[in-house]
């Protein structure tokens, strides 16, 4: 297992939206092996309180430059300390950890659903999906068209949209207060979209075919989503799981749980398995197939 644990250099730490920061870290070891959906365990403070490391997803990793990126929201003591770090500081990180999102080759219409800070790991995912979308070099641009349904509390919290578009995702933004994009939840859009495009339930096949009003249809209305990926607050994941249960599309969700070790040793991060008992969010996940879990 290529797991890194040690002190790395902070390259930058910038507030990209109110209370939301992006931090660049120099860590060739982690950059080399990281895959989307994996996370770091970050020691925010070298002292003994706050004590535990904080799990933060990897939002970008670049093998060539050896850089990784995280995007985090300041919610408490640990992230508060993180936000005050500057580029001359070092940071103690451990990672990459966990099982990330599967990124099969050749997907043409993956759908990502993100809520708030949950969008962070989806940026890394979007890039990987795009990069893996075609085995050959021709026809790629026109062929790949991901869909991204993302939600934020309000317009000022939106981040990463340009990046998603650069990765050839059609982006639909929702906000709770309607201050940008649709007023509502990204899961509403997902549901609506799937209802139109999907041949399931079988009796609805015709509806699916006539879904000419969906965003991507101009490019390739015949392509059905091959996978749905979601990360966000629990209610979002619940809804995605519920929607998934009505389709046959493989659906992957990334869950959060309070963690101690982050490596599977303490059994602290239990999530309820549909097979009975518990799975470990840190090692068996944080990404699971939606049907694996009871949310």
């Amino acid at each position, binding site marked *: 297992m290529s797991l890194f644990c040690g002190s790395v250099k902070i390259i930058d730490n910038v507030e990209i939206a109110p209370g939301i920061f992006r931090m660049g870290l120099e860590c060739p070891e982690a950059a080399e092996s990281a895959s989307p959906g994996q996370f770091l365990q970050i020691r925010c403070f070298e002292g*003994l309180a706050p004590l535990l490391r904080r799990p933060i997803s990897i939002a970008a990793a670049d093998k060539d430059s050896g850089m990784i990126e995280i995007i985090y929201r300041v919610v408490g003591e640990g992230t508060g300390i993180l936000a005050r770090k500057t580029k001359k500081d070092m940071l103690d990180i451990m990672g990459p950890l966990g099982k990330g999102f599967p990124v099969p080759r050749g997907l043409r219409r993956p759908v990502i659903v993100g809520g708030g800070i949950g969008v962070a790991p989806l940026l890394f995912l979007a890039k990987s999906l795009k990069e893996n979308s075609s085995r050959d070099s021709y026809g790629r641009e026109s062929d790949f068209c991901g869909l991204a349904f993302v939600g934020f509390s309000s317009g000022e919290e939106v981040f990463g949209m340009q990046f998603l578009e650069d990765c050839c995702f059609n982006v639909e933004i929702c906000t709770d207060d309607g201050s940008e994009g649709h007023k509502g939840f990204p899961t509403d859009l997902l549901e609506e979209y799937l209802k139109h495009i999907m041949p399931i339930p079988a009796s609805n096949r015709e509806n699916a075919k006539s879904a000419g009003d969906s965003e991507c249809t101009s490019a390739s209305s015949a392509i059905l989503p091959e996978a749905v990926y979601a990360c966000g607050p629990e209610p979002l994941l619940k809804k995605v799981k519920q929607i998934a249960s009505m389709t046959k599309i493989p659906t992957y969700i990334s869950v959060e749980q309070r963690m101690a070790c982050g490596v599977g*040793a303490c059994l602290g991060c239990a999530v309820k398995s549909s097979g009975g008992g518990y799975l470990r969010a840190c090692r068996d996940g944080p990404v699971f197939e939606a049907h694996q879990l009871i949310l």
Partner: protein
Amino acid sequence: MDDRFFEREYNPYESDASLMESKSRHADFADISVNICGIAMKNPVMAASGTFGFGEEYAGLYDISRLGAVVTKGLTLERRCGNPPPRIYETPAGILNSIGLENPGVEGFIRWEWPRLCRSGIPVIANIDGDNANDYYRMARRLSELDGLAAIEANISCPNVEKGGMAFGQHPESAYEAIKAVREGTNLPVIAKLSPNVTDIRQIAEAAVNAGADAISLINTLQGMAIDIHKKKPVFHRTFAGLSGPAVKPVALRMVWEVFEAVRVPIIGMGGIASWQDAVEFMLAGASAVAVGTANFIDPFAPLKIISGLKKYLIGQGIRALNEIIGSAH
């Protein structure tokens, strides 16, 4: 008055680094191996039960055979799913946990974990927890069949289960009963793991020794709780949970000190140990070995740093063997 006082005293509190500077040209070697009731360990630093899985999880970071010993997650007779989440809650310099002994059961352990563990080249101590004395007896007997198991640690102190657990460790009579059962089930060394949630830890330690314990390990977690002020309900399903980590160190150290004065068997000290200085404190208080629990989560290399720190400390002090300092603060 010491004529050379300035050399030392301008930096009013002698720095810990200075403790590690070699005082004599000859003391460039220190023996930190220990033998605790027949468990031969190349160093006195163990991984505490429940914080190190079955030894596999941290193997991606370093060769775990560098540790003195590994204690398994607590085993029960039958496999258990454990408690519903949340199971972990951070507190100032500590954590509360309510894992609830999720484990594959003794048979599951033997089948799935032991084959790998027994080849790891490191003493493995099986930690067991029973609902009743008979459980303890049966587990001890079954585990004794394993070829190469180093010892059995009888956890009579788990605060996170319905039956047994901590209740055994809170009264001399029941502690005696549980340890006696283990003793009858095995010829392996028996370590009694005590609960700190008692009025007089010495009485419990004495009862355990009278029942045949070859060593005492302490402390398990202090019983604590947290309340979610948003939901106005306890954070944990089972209301109470176990407090561990640096926050509890002063209490753990005190109990090691007390037990050292009460019984003659070796003590495995734990509770908040995060640095070699902490480990030295425990040894001066009377621990022959130490276990690192919560600190693994904060710094996975903590056990290795403790091992090398201990070695340098002894060399710096001109002490050739670890047991010269055990209990020497009394």
